[in-house]
């Protein structure tokens, strides 16, 4: 009897620790970006970029709802050898285009499933995006840096690995709205990373 009680107590203790509600999460992700729309046109030949990373903090306000913040640094680059024709003038030369996109967002997520298991979520983010556009033609450089209002919808899921760590997969459609000096930037990003629970 005592043995059974001891085993049961051990299991309850272990499972209850593993089942502690997630109070806060810190995500560190590797971002894989697919430029779209005007962003893709600007870059000319960039289909997919593996040069991004992001940090995210989520604070649970309910067992299945969190709010937080998101910061990322997504990098894209393209090139072109096509001639540029402007009226009576033609310019030929190698062109190299770069975009650094840095979103600073607040976000909110809704979670399904249990914190101890596979946990899908949906969310939205809203905030400012710092876009750094750079075009190099020959030894000449054109830069266009702007702040733009942006947002993203997101879907994803987390898979628990250890007591305090999840693997995180997310997909966002990032949009920085057009401004007077910048075209609208859009990209689909896949965030693959690690979630640290209740750090």
């Amino acid at each position, binding site marked *: 009897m005592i043995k059974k009680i001891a085993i049961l107590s051990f299991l309850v203790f272990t499972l209850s620790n593993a089942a502690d509600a997630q109070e806060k999460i*810190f995500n*560190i*992700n*590797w*971002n894989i970006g697919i430029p779209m729309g005007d962003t893709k046109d600007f870059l000319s*030949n960039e289909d997919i*970029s*593996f*040069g*991004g*990373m992001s*940090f995210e903090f989520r604070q649970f306000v309910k067992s299945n709802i969190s709010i937080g913040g998101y910061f990322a640094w997504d*990098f894209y*680059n*393209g*090139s072109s050898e096509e*001639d540029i024709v402007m009226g*009576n*003038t*033609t*310019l*030929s*030369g*190698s062109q*190299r285009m770069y975009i650094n996109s840095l979103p600073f967002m607040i976000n909110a997520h809704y979670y399904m499933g249990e914190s101890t298991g596979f946990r899908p979520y949906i969310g939205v983010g809203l905030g400012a995006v710092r876009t750094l556009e750079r075009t190099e*033609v*020959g*030894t*000449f450089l054109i830069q266009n840096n702007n702040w733009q209002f942006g947002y993203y919808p997101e879907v994803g899921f987390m898979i628990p690995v250890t007591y305090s760590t999840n693997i995180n997969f997310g997909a966002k459609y990032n949009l920085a709205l057009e401004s007077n000096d910048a075209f609208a930037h859009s990209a689909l990003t896949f965030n693959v*990373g*690690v979630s*640290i629970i209740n*750090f």
Partner: protein
Amino acid sequence: MIKKILSIALVMFTLSACYNTKGDVYVSDLDIIVTTFDDTYDFTGAQTFYLPDTVLQLGLEVGDDPLDGIYDELIISKTRQNLLDLGYIEETDPENNPVDLVVLLQSVVVDFHNIYGGYPPYYPGYPGYPGYPWGPGWGWGGYPVIVQSYSKGTVMINMVDPDAIDGNTQTVPRVWIGLLNGLAEGSASNVRTRIGEGIDKAFDQSAYLGQ
């Protein structure tokens, strides 16, 4: 926990940093060719041209040419060949036989020097108390100064309509300009190749010049 976060961040940073940009950039990749033309000029009506055997070095005193004109012959011959290939006829005596176009060649080489860093040494040392003179001491070393130097060159081909020259206003309207710009770096043979290809490209992208 901080170590854990930093370790994970380092892994993610490494993954993103391994992403290569679009290949290496060579000196020839920095060459550009720009052409522009006067759309009111009828190139099909022009048949003859005069090409002086001189490339004017811009911004230099007469006789002062840093390259000693080593590419002048190439610039002149390439321009002449492209005009002949387009169907134009060269006139060597324009004073007695007026021409439709005069082709003027110019070039310039500019040296750039970018200077980075460099802080002067400090702490020259302290004098000792009277009666116990101390040496001036050694100053701390400053940070190294980095100087980055390179040269950029431009070749300009100007087509002028001699009939449109205005002596009163001293204006010489150009009906076509071909401009080559790039780094004047690399071996002489490499520069010659790039100049030749650039002049060919300037005429290739100007199909309206054809007869």
